[in-house]
């Protein structure tokens, strides 16, 4: 009933048994077809012997329409490699990447360029702006390479610049902007062609903490308007929790867990994940939809809250109201929560945590 579950049929982008191996002769490990779990161990051992690096190892996941899918992991765990495989900036060694059920690895160079021109947008950690172009030209660049007329692309670029709040700086050059402003340009550029899938590779990691926070809010605001299908990379667990619908956690090229923020925090798959979740305040992660119960008859809809309200936001509401609080999806009441539910949820989260570690 949440967004994720509603759209679980509509897979926008997925990868299946994706491998990217760096080294002399990466294909050698995959000469005899499928890669089962046992094969995997053998392959690792042989890669080590022959000094190959497995940047992405047997990665599989689905990204649903309008979902923010976050890939989280320490530096060097293969996040950038995976996201680049999804757009074929990096050619995977083996595996499948399905974009709208088309195998991206089989399309021709021209088709790929066409898909990048119309269906994909990407934001980079260090912005990747063209130093010789103004803000306006940078934002209009993806349209320019498609052959859009100057008047049209400039108009569109101005809209995008306004969207990210940079109006007035159209004629500045990247070197004249602060980091946060440069990344706004990067965001505007990546949205100029109205992509269906939006890749963001550590978009805020190069920014100061305060600016980062502000940019995250901005990003969530944009997504509320645009409903893009998003793959968002970060090494910052709290950032992942803030923005994610679902999180994939990577470690040394492998995906170790995929789940909602609450899943990951309350049921970490292994000690590695537990380590991340240790210091995370539960009230910031657990959402109403994670523990609400079916609504009682005649529950007033007027003061209803939405399913993605966190406990932190819920508590003052509960304090004010005597009875249960209604949960609504905007159209109708879909559940209710009481103070007792909250306490139970928090208690189980703690035990879950202990069980995990």
């Amino acid at each position, binding site marked *: 009933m949440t967004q994720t579950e509603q759209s679980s049929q509509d897979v926008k982008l997925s990868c299946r048994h994706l491998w990217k191996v760096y080294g002399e002769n990466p294909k050698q490990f995959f000469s005899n077809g499928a890669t089962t779990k046992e094969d995997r161990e053998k392959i690792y051992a042989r890669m080590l012997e022959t000094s190959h690096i497995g940047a992405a190892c047997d990665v599989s996941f689905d990204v649903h329409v309008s979902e923010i899918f976050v890939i989280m992991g320490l530096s060097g765990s293969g996040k950038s490699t995976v996201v680049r495989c999804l757009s074929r900036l990096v050619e995977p060694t083996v595996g499948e990447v399905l974009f709208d059920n088309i195998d991206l690895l089989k399309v021709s160079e021209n088709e790929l360029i066409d898909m990048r021109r119309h269906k994909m*947008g990407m934001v980079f950690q260090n912005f990747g702006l*063209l130093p010789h172009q103004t803000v306006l030209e940078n934002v209009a*660049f993806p349209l320019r390479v498609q052959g859009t007329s100057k008047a049209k692309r400039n108009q569109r670029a101005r809209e995008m610049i306004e969207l990210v709040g940079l109006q007035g700086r159209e004629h500045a050059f990247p070197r004249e902007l602060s980091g946060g402003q440069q990344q706004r340009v990067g965001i505007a550029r990546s949205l100029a062609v109205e992509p269906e899938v939006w890749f963001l590779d550590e978009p805020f990691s190069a920014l100061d903490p305060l600016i980062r926070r502000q940019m995250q809010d901005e990003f969530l605001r944009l997504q509320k308007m645009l409903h893009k299908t998003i793959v968002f990379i970060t090494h910052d667990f709290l950032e992942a929790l803030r923005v994610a619908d679902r999180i994939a956690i990577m470690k040394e090229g492998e995906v170790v867990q995929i789940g909602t923020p609450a899943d990951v925090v309350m049921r970490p798959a292994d000690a590695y994940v537990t380590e991340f979740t240790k210091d995370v305040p539960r009230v910031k992660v657990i959402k109403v939809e994670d523990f609400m119960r079916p609504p009682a008859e005649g529950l007033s809809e007027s003061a209803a809250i939405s399913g993605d309200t966190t406990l932190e936001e819920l508590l003052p509401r509960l304090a004010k109201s005597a009875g249960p609080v209604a949960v609504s999806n905007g159209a109708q009441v879909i559940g209710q929560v009481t103070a007792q539910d909250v306490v139970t949820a928090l208690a189980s989260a703690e035990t879950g945590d202990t069980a995990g570690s």
Partner: protein
Amino acid sequence: MNTIPTDIDAQPNRFGLPADAAAWLAVGVIMVVTLALRGQHAWLINYPKEWVIPVADWVNVFMAWFIEAFRWLFRAMSWLISWPMEAIRITLQWLPWSATISVIVTVAYIAGGWRLALFSALALFYMVVVGYWPESVATLSLVAMSVPLSLCLGLFVGIAAFTWRSVDRVVQPTLDLMQTFPTFAYLIPILFLFGFGPVVGLIASAIYAAPPMVRNVILGLQRVAPEIIESGQMSGTNSRQLLWLVRIPSAMPTIMIGVNQTIMAALSMVIIASVIGSSADIGWEVLSMMRKALFGQSFLAGIVIALLAMVMDRISRELAHRGPVDHDAQASWLTRYRYLVIAIGAGVGFVVLAQFFPALGAYPKEWTFYPAEQLNQGVNYVIREYGSTLDAIKNNTLFYFLLPVRVGLENTVKPFTWGFDLTSTFIAFYAAGVALAAVLAGWQWNWRASVVVIILGLIYYYGTNGIPWAAFIAMTVVLAYQVGGWQTGLLALLGFGFILTTGTWVPAMRSVYLCGAAVLISFIGGSALGVWAARSDRVSAFLRPINDTLQTMPLFVFLIPVIMFFQVGDFPALLAIIMYAIVPAIRYTEHGIRSIPAHIVEAARAQGCTKRQILWNVQLPLALPEIMMGLNQTIMFGMAMLVVAALVGTKGLGQAVYLALNTGNVGEGFIAGMSMALIAMIADRITQAWSSQKKAELGL
């Protein structure tokens, strides 16, 4: 802080000697045996003519055939190129000087503001006032034509080398060779193929000036941040768009450095090409005045070259530094193109004005200020007054330094020079002195230092001329092998083998002697100045503009002052080479010392080191790799100047190239040029390898 080299491969062999020490011992044995036998066997010193491989003849035969077969093609090209060249020349010569100057000054203003505009105006006005405007314009038009050719050539070769590894594998060694190949030697085949005429200078400079562009294009393209390329790809660029809209514009700052270097190289080559005397340009003016011993005149013309170089360098450098400018679409056409309008307006304005005021078109002869005679009188006065001092400097350098290095003490010490005969007592004292120095060096540093002292002692006694070729080759090959591995050793062996077997050993040693002597002085003097500049901001600020200027000067210019005071011969050549080659020694030393992290020096100071101790024990050892790169560049600069120094009558490979140019002997020119390039390359590899070895030892 004498870091003891930790050679892994210095395994003691069965004589209990490390392998590299054994190699030097073998060199010593060869040296002693060949020196002992040279009396009976003259071939140990003079490689016999009968053994010479006639490569030069083969090249000539090939060239004769090649020219016969393809002359029409090259003549057609020459004819084609001569049209736009003539068009530019005639236009520039027709334009009133006032119009040309106003356009250039406008460009200077756009590039660097008022100061540069003023400097350019004064510099160009000097050319008008002394009456060298037509010659300056002739040079300018050649440069204006060759630079675009060079840039296009460089850009496309650079892109090709960046794109295809196979092209790169051909381009890199070609660039290395071109950079060390003597300038005059370029002219010979071009002269043959394209025929006598100004086109030769044009094509020679277009080819000669392309390598810096190629290098910077490759470097710039390689350095574009991967994220910028990825962002271009994600914007949906195809490969052509990615190259022209993303890679090349992003690489522009580096490419513009290449443009600056290409312009300077083109000017330098246009000037050098004037030795063939096919164009009435400023280089020819300097040269013909020099040949007539009219030094005041050649000095005035030389200043024109220097000023041209400075104006071109400053303008192109400033343009390179200027970032992109936004043409605000709201602004009117006039404001957007205001500079273009001003430039054209001023140009056209002066053309019109010149119709009414002819002085603005052709500067009147009566108004010229040409103080050549006064200059000559001044020089004569100095020579009259200080002649004995100048002679003393010259003779002392000759008798105590240059001659011994060339023919050895054994042929130098005579009553006429040193005031006494070469007695066995003197020889014994000399040998004892060298031995003592070797022992001291070994005690202070290590046995390698002793080897260096002994070799220097031997060279000073026997001269580069008197060292048997086998011993010299053995020495170089062992050095090359130990510093740079077997590839460098092989290069040294093949290189000197080529020089020996093609019969250019004697002139080659003559070049090694003069260049070596100049490099030694430049390096010691330059490093000392560099140390001083590193420790004093005032000295640094004083030296910087001088270095900048010296480095942009076309090589010709250096000959003028030395020839004024010292006429011709090895001594003025030595001075000219030093003036040019000292610059990198100063620069690299200063940079090396200044870029040592401050905390290391502070730590040394905290431990109570004196300034002198810090210099010798901390700064110099840490800056050594950089200082070695300075030595490398000093050698390269010295070799480049050596060729030009042939014009003041030095003997050696430079002279051989110059002679071949005059007699049109392609084969001889090729052999001499190649020999020079090989020596330069070997020296380059050895010093580079040494520098990176030291760097590795220091863990940098």
